[in-house]
């Protein structure tokens, strides 16, 4: 029996990698992938707690997160394609249209 804390530590590591990648990477697709990584790190801790307390709520939450992540991926990729078509770049530092 693996203790719950192991799962939580793994989840924290994965989340931190996600945050770091989000801040560091310039390619917008990589940034997008790091968001997925953070979401799945959270999913992992949900499942771990659900297993520990023998409650199904955590599992259900994970399904919700997956659905939202799928929708987000669809919309986000569409936006990325649109941006690439108009601006010919995927570098987030160059996509600063909302600047004053």
């Amino acid at each position, binding site marked *: 029996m693996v203790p719950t804390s192991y799962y939580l530590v793994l989840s924290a590591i994965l989340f931190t990698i996600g*945050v770091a990648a989000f*801040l560091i990477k310039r390619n917008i697709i990589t940034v997008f992938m790091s968001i997925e990584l953070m979401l799945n790190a959270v999913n992992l801790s949900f499942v771990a707690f659900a297993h520990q307390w023998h409650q199904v709520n955590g599992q259900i939450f994970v399904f919700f997160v997956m659905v939202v992540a799928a929708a987000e991926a669809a919309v986000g990729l569409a936006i990325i394609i649109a941006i690439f078509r108009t601006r010919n770049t995927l570098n*987030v*530092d160059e*996509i*600063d*249209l*909302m*600047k*004053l």
Partner: protein
Amino acid sequence: MTGSLNLWLIPLVPFAGFLVNGLIGRKLPKAFATAVALIATLIPFLHVVKIWFQFPSLTVPYVESLGTWIWTGNFHADFALQLDQLTMIMLLVVTGVGFLIHIYSVGYMAHEEGYWRFFAYLNLFMFFMLTLVLSENFLLMFVGWEGVGLASYLLIGFYFLRDSAVNAGKKAFVVNRIGDFGFLLAMFLLVAHFGTLSFSEVFAQVSQHPEWQGGFLTAIALFLVLGATGKSAQIPLYTWLPDAMEGPTPVSALIHAATMVTAGVYMVARTHIIFDRSPLALSTVAIIGAATAFFAATVGMVQTDIKRVLAYSTVSQLGYMFLACGVAAYSSAIFHLITHAFFKGLLFLAAGSVIHALGGEQDMRVMGGLRKKIPITFWTMTAAVFAISGIPPFAGFFSKDEILYQAFISGGLGRILWFVGLVTAGLTSFYMFRLWYLTFTGESRANEIEEHGAAVHARSDSKLVVEAEHAHGVHESPWVMLLPLILLAILATTGGFLGVPSAMGGHDEIGHFLEPLLGSGAHAAGGESSGLALSLAAVSVLVALTGLFAAHILYKAKPELPHKLATQLRALYALLLNKYWVDQIYGALIVTPLLLVSRYLLKGLIDRGVIDGAGFAAGATAQGFGAIVQRVQSGNIRSYAGWLALGAAVLLIVSYFGFTAHF
């Protein structure tokens, strides 16, 4: 008496006329606008006449409340109208003379631009004037008081393309505002001491406390006097009235002679219960009146513009009314107000007819010999001149003589006032006959214009071009103008018989009619001998005839004499011709310092420096702060994400160490 009198109809019908003509008059055919204006004045007149016939069976004062206006705490003021003897007389004068002048205006203004606008303003004036005389409290009276000032302003500035007319309108408005300030202060004092502004409640409280003498009542009365001097063109606030002659002549007749300027006299008579308790205020009124009467009459003697002579004459006659109020002879003041409305309205309308005949010429030096050319104007004007000069049996004789008599028997100061009034009567007679001789007798001096045209016109105040009329030739006015002249001439001739004093075998109907309200004059009850009254009357007739005689010599028998006199008494002549330089003195002492203070201190320092400066400083601060903060919003997603992560980290640390702090 059952049923309502529907007093509200009297002011509101002219207001409806104002709305119709004012809003859509421009698009209406001329005849329709005329009909609206005349009907809107005729209906109130007929209504007033109807009430006049019901009047003996009424219990006065009859009060009609149209609802609450202001109700706050213990104070409340209603839209309340009241009818009593004084209001009745004022209503008859205002609607009657007002209607006649409306008819006259149809002819006089026939060819003017903005015909509809003129009648809209006239109806607006009638609305406010009727509100003023009908109101049952000081506050509603003040609405009318301000409103007639507004209408006066609009009508003086009727020819708004002419700079002098616009300035005259502004002057009238500003000078009146000073008086209105006095009225306002009086109202504040009334509220503070009585807690109400209703006439009946204030007067009842005063009557219940015979021990109240002078003190705050004097203060209230003096502030009311300040208001009255503004509206009724008395010293020190009379300067606007002569300038107000820039307005069309019917306006001068209606507003600046017959009705509005008498509002101050009406107000003093209306509030006489307060004045009766304050000998100081009464003496002030009497002295102001006598001084103004004399002062304006002297200026009137040398003016050359026909309307300005009449304007100074109006100021002078209003002075008589104030004099009468000041010796507590209120019914005499009202009597003179009535006869003055007749003869001065007539004088202005006749002068308007003369001006009309000459195509806009107002300078008496180029008139003359008009008697044969405009006979009806001549005869009606003659009646008015005799009336104002106090020649029996014309109207002015009885009313003016009554005032002088009342002043004389009030004793003490009254004797001096009587003497001033008597001298003024002589001057009045002189300048009126001067006007009469210059305008109507002798030969026309119009041909002299060609020779001295430039010189005369450089000096003259008249604004309209003379050339225009010579094309038409001198012509009598149309009947629509002559009819009001004739009716007013009849009134000016016979109006005096309303108040023949008992000493001359009359019944003094006006006095008895007003007696329940105004008392019978403070001194009439003394049983003075009729011999005194008759001899005083004889003296004043003699003085009036002297004035006539002097005018005859100077302007008929020896026409070269006035010029000689003017050169010999150059200083005096210049003093009078320049109206004692009062306008210049006011300009130097009040207007210029006020302008300087406004321009440099208020505008330059306070407005530009402090008020604008504060605004600019606040703006600059916000801008500077914004310039710093806007760097944060770079549009760079990764920097936003960095801030987000940093915030989250701070929250984590705080919450972690926050928890440990408790353990």
